[in-house]
């Protein structure tokens, strides 16, 4: 969708299609998508609406550590995970407090250990702390706030990633398309049967 097509133009096309009685629904969805894309394009680079610049850098680094880019696919940053969290925090005081509190806890903990805040610490220092708070088995009065925060952060980063275009491609989900007939590839059936207790056929 080119950016200079106006919303009015799209609505006009949709109305025409609806009047012709053929494409109503598809046209409506087409307009919805095109308008969403245009709004996004018009925004330019994302500016956090809730987090301050330091919190934003820290949040971005954390989501990148949770779902990094690798040779298989891009990571959480390309999927807009920090933006997703920023949006929700802007509209939810409870969630926002959890995030600012969690980010502040991480900074304090890093300073106590390494004399630096989280985002400015060396990568191995960052992962050393995450290796503690990423596991329930390390639960202790000292680490509990970090463990609880990381659990939320991990879930929401994972959610943002796998509901994005790049995350969906990473999983290889191939649906959400119309088909006239439903079929299952024989290759997939045989793959599963061979590996199952029932054996291939």
């Amino acid at each position, binding site marked *: 969708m080119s950016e200079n097509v106006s919303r009015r133009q799209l609505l006009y096309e949709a109305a025409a299609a609806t009047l012709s009685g053929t494409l109503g629904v598809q046209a409506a969805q087409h307009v919805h998508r095109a308008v969403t894309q245009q709004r996004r394009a018009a925004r330019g680079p994302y500016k956090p609406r809730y987090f301050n610049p330091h919190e934003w850098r820290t949040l971005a680094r954390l989501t990148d550590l949770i779902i990094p880019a690798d040779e298989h696919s891009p990571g959480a940053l390309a999927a807009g995970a920090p933006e997703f969290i920023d*949006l*929700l925090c802007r509209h939810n005081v409870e969630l926002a407090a959890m995030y600012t509190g969690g980010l502040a806890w991480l900074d304090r903990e890093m300073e106590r250990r390494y004399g630096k805040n989280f985002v400015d610490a060396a990568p191995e220092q960052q992962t050393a702390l995450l290796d503690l708070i990423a596991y329930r088995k390390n639960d202790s009065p000292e680490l509990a706030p970090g463990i609880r925060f990381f659990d939320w952060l991990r879930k929401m980063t994972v959610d943002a990633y*796998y509901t*994005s275009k790049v995350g969906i491609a990473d999983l*290889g989900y191939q649906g959400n398309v119309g088909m006239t007939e*439903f079929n299952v590839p024989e290759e997939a059936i045989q793959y599963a049967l061979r590996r199952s207790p029932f054996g291939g056929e």
Partner: protein
Amino acid sequence: MFQIQRAPKVYDVVVIGSGAGGGTVAHVLTRLGVEVALLEAGPMLDPARDYKEHMWPYEVDHRGAGEGGEWYFGRQQWGYFNAPNGYWEIEGEPYTTAPDTRFRWFRSRILGGRTNHYGRISLRFADYDFKPYTTDGLGTDWPIRYEELAPYYDKAEAFIGVTGTREGIRSAPDGVFQPPPPPRVHEILVKKACDKLGIPCIPSRMAILTRPLNNRVACHYCGQCGRGCVTASNYSSSQVQIFPALKTGKLTLITEAMVRELIPNAEGRVTAVSYIDKRTRSERQIRCRTVVLAASACESARILLNSKSPRFPNGLANSSGVVGRFLTDTVGFSLTGYIPALENLPRHDADGFGGMHMYIPWWLWDKKNKDFPRGYHIEIGGGFPMPAIGMFHGACQRHEGYGRRLKEAIRREYGAFVHLAGRGEMIPNEYSYCEIDPNVVDRWGIPVLRFHFRWSEHELKMVRHMRETFTEIIETMGGKVVRADPGISVGGTIIHELGTIRMGDDPRTSALNRYCQAHDVKNLFVADAAPFVSNPEKNPTLTINALAWRTAEYLAEALRRGDV
């Protein structure tokens, strides 16, 4: 000044509620030339505007979690992408529960009601399901036999379109079927496991078209039935029955109409329906020759109980005192297995139907050596679903950590889960019922329902059997159970609540006769699941369709004879 607005027109039939029951009645009656007014408590439905079919999660910035992340706090009423059809809590329209009761009531406020989203599972009751008392001495027999309802199952299936295969299984009677789609990979494995265990596993019976029918096109296999289908390839009363009925010119649809009570005359006939026009918060009355309640089992009971008058001090059509009693829901229990054979399964489009292609009908109906009465069927989930918020939280819990290893684990496991959900029969008991709460009214001033609900030992034992059986099936597939419900479902949450205005031949123990016509009020009929005498392990919608069809034909004939 408070003033009730009375329209002069008298409709042959006023139908209250537009779900599976009301939609079927409106469809059948208008085709027979009867003039019908249909009252719906919610707004009109516009599929093109209201359905979010085919939307990707990233098309909204909150990805379906809600702008304030409501999903994460359990505050989202209903999935963001789902059809806009109902709520667990409706603002300003509360219900209450007795102190010792956990019960949840899912209500719909839109044209088509819960049929906009329901699972489309369409199972006939078995012959023995109509004779529970005769079979095992529990509950009450229906006043009708399977053979009396069978022709209406035929009509309903032929009209709405149901998939299936002829299997000759007594617990799952065959019907008028469209061909089913082929099984998905995980369903093939479940079937293999069931073969080994001596459990039947057969193509599912779903109200989804695989062939064109009545100007509706066949399914396009996007797997999103729950979002509402813009091509009307699955059954919803709104698209399949009410929109076509409107075209006959015989149907007057009144939306945003919240019914308060039915108004009887001195002879004990209902002459008008009193409702609140929600747009103006004003009270109106619509006049009728006959009335059909189809507001959902509990809402219909509520309307009758609130229709009190000197002649009907216990509520209308309730001289027996059974209105509100015998409330049941389906027994629910589910667990999830991880199946290593499906790890890294070659990717393909496994969307198919919005729901299962195979299911497990009840198989121990003739066995006496089990420790609980009645039975259950098993619904199968799995495959490669469209990614959504929350789908990988289980992976986060099981793998913890972060980074490349977490990412690889999620990719490896995607598509390797099988969900089994048991849906079992609850036997009516004296502790489960709804009544009017004398202390609470809703925002329209209408007294609300108070629920009492209790599972019995029968249902709890059944859930133990489900847990053992499901675990056996998963393990026979070489898998391992990774998640299970803590126990039996909370009453009401399977959304099969019914039985609250039951039918029967004896006016002392039932409110409706064998045609779902009130014993006490000749021109009053009920066409939702309130008349059900028992709650067999089959999802109720198809039986609502069939019973409502039969009721509508009886009513049309009675109107023609002037006998109602």
